């Protein structure tokens, strides 16, 4: 269903979820937003594989937040438990959980338009929202190549492992160190890819329209009744949530 909506509607859904994640403070509210984003993605036809991959990407970041926040806020709130010189307080733990939920909600909110919109439609949607064409192309290509670079990262990581770099043992520090060679290879390959992209774009007339004619598109986008229904209902729901949060 999501795939049939206008890209602007999907971008609006993303904006609402991200905004509510930023203003929301209650754990139950943020958890509900994460659940709502998942519901929209699943009902919208996004595969479980994409959702699982996003969770896997977020895991290390979420772990950092969940561990680091309680460590930074050791002196605020009631101590829940002690380990050696470390005090875990209720405030620290809840703050970590809050930030983790915020990040998760925002990430899955962003996934709504990005995982369901072809690059041409995304560019057209951003353009119709008033973004200059070059900016829209830049965002569209960045989204596309983020996936390509992600796949490249997986291959490079596999290539390092195939040369005996064993990641199945060792702690977090070893895991972090192991990421360095892979990241260097990703950066080098990404730079080559960007050179290749610049040539690919120029050879097919990117930027040519500026001097000679207006750029055209094969399939233009337009808002249809289902878009208006989703826009109205989602805005009402978000407004209700905002009132709830502010009160």
């Amino acid at each position, binding site marked *: 269903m999501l795939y049939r909506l206008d890209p602007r509607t999907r971008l609006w859904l993303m904006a609402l979820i991200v905004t509510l994640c930023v203003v929301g403070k209650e754990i139950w509210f943020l958890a509900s937003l994460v659940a709502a984003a998942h519901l929209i993605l699943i009902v919208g036809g996004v595969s479980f594989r994409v959702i699982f991959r996003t969770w896997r990407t977020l895991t290390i970041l979420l772990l950092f937040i969940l561990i680091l926040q309680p460590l930074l806020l050791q002196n605020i709130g009631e101590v829940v438990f002690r380990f050696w010189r470390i005090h875990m307080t209720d405030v620290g733990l809840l703050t970590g959980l809050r930030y983790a939920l915020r990040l998760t909600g925002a990430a899955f909110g962003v996934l709504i338009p990005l995982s369901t919109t072809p690059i041409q439609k995304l560019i057209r949607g951003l353009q119709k929202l008033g973004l200059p064409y070059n900016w829209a192309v830049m965002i569209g*290509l960045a989204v596309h190549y983020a996936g390509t670079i992600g796949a490249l990262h997986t291959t490079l990581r596999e290539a390092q492992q195939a040369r005996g770099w064993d990641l199945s043992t060792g702690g977090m520090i070893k895991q972090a160190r192991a990421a360095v060679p892979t990241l260097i290879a990703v950066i080098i390959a990404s730079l080559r890819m960007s050179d290749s992209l610049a040539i690919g774009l120029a050879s097919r007339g990117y930027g040519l329209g500026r001097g000679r004619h207006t750029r055209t*598109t094969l399939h233009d986008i337009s808002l249809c009744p289902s878009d208006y229904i989703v826009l109205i209902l989602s805005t009402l729901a978000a407004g209700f949530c905002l009132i709830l949060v502010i009160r």
Partner: protein
Amino acid sequence: MITVQRLSYEHPSPFTKDTWDTLFHDLSFMVKSGECLGIVGPNGSGKTTLCLTLAGLAPRLTSGRIQGQIRVFDRDVQVEPVGWAADIIGLVMQDLTGQLFNETVEDEIAWGLGNLGLPAAAMPDRIRNALAAAGLPDGLLKRPVTDLSGGEQKRLAIAAALALQPRVLILDTPTGGLSPLARRILQESLIRLRRETNLTIVLADNDLDLLTAVADQVLFLDDGIIVDSASVYDAVVAKPYISSAASVFSMVVNARSDYSLTCLTTEEAIRQTASIPIVGDCQPPVAAPSPVEAPQVAIEVAHLTYSYDGVNRALEAVDLSIPVGQFVAILGDNGAGKTTFAKHLIGLLRPQEGVVRVMGKDAARLSIGQLAAQVGYVFQNSEDQIFSATLREEIVFGPGNLGFSPDRLNHAVARSLERFGLEALADLPPAAFSFSNRRLAALSSIAAMETPILALDEPTVGLDREKQALVGAWLSEWHKNGGTILLITHEMDFAARYAERVLVFDRGRLIVDACPEAAFSNASALISAGVEKPFSLALAEALECAALAGDLTPEGTACFLLGGLK
């Protein structure tokens, strides 16, 4: 029309400050409207750079400086703004990652048309015509680009360029990484394109079968000479890097100057040798008896099945056993399941059904790190996987992880550098190497791991014949020393020359498992799997001379022909 006058190209040396390296020097040539120019040359001779320079994109979007002049239909391409030529010059690059970035085939072709400002109503016709010209069916219009095979993606890139109705089409190594079947379809598309349009084509590729079928004249970039298609043999024969047929027949002609065989392609070789009586023994050679002793098994695969999406099977019930010390070539069309099979050997994929045993141990119970001590795995595009500050550090990475002692480590690194002729580059950053040296660096880093088994996924793609011979020599030596080798390749002559057993995959199933002579004689299986016969075998069949098939190496073929040409 393309006119090039005294063109030279230099690029900054990646290793020495303020130094410029010459790529090509003082080139002058002309390609008339509707003609096709082929460009050949060894790795690093500047084929890609020349293509980009002709399109007006190098050195402006790359690094370097040029001298001389290029005029395309009376316009100086180096003076016009970048991108001006999109509707005059179509460019299809070797690496398609920067060229195909849209969701569907239709969107991909429409992208360029939108840049030119073509009204939406006029686009569908242009898109359909471009698809047809590139030899792709209409039914692919809504197909995701990522679902296309390698050959289809190449033809899509050509369609995207043709949709802009250019007057010149520049193709950089269009056959790179394609299976023989995909190469043949691409060749047919280009022949049809030449027949039906007045397009001027520049075709940089070392596939002489393609060039002699499509090009009117050929530019040899290493020495700057340009010859018409009838004289290509004389230019090629002294160059060991491009043609199996030419290398075989140059050996024959060198030994017997009374024969004027000038064959570049398999077809020509068959035609010319057909008129010569072969008086040698045309009976097949008697095979030596197999050793009775049961060999130790390196790899055992039982009922291996794997699916990426749970619906389509990338591998289906594969059973085989590979003894220690065997050299096995794995063949098949793009997407046949070859890489999926190989990834199971190093534990990057785990069997969904069935078992894979490596040196007697269940691979599913071993970590990738543990399997890496047994299997040296060379990935596709291995040249993109290097990351160290120097080549020496890059080579040390693998053996260091495997816990080599300092003495063994030093010896392995020195041996590996020497084997690939990379000693002079040992302390330089490999990321700045040319494509072929980066590939050799990646191979040398696996060679230094000294594993008993090697699995190589298309290690020779993009390498010229000289560099291929270097890889072949390494594999031969490895094999002689008792190493087990699994080689995935689309180079049939390379497979026939080195392998003692051939596996052919077709849509996830293992359909042929035999010695090369028997495997390449199985015509129906080869057609189904999109695999072609190697040159020597095609010649043997055409001459109805089974003995010729007894030794599929170029030396063996030449030797046999010399014995037979009385």
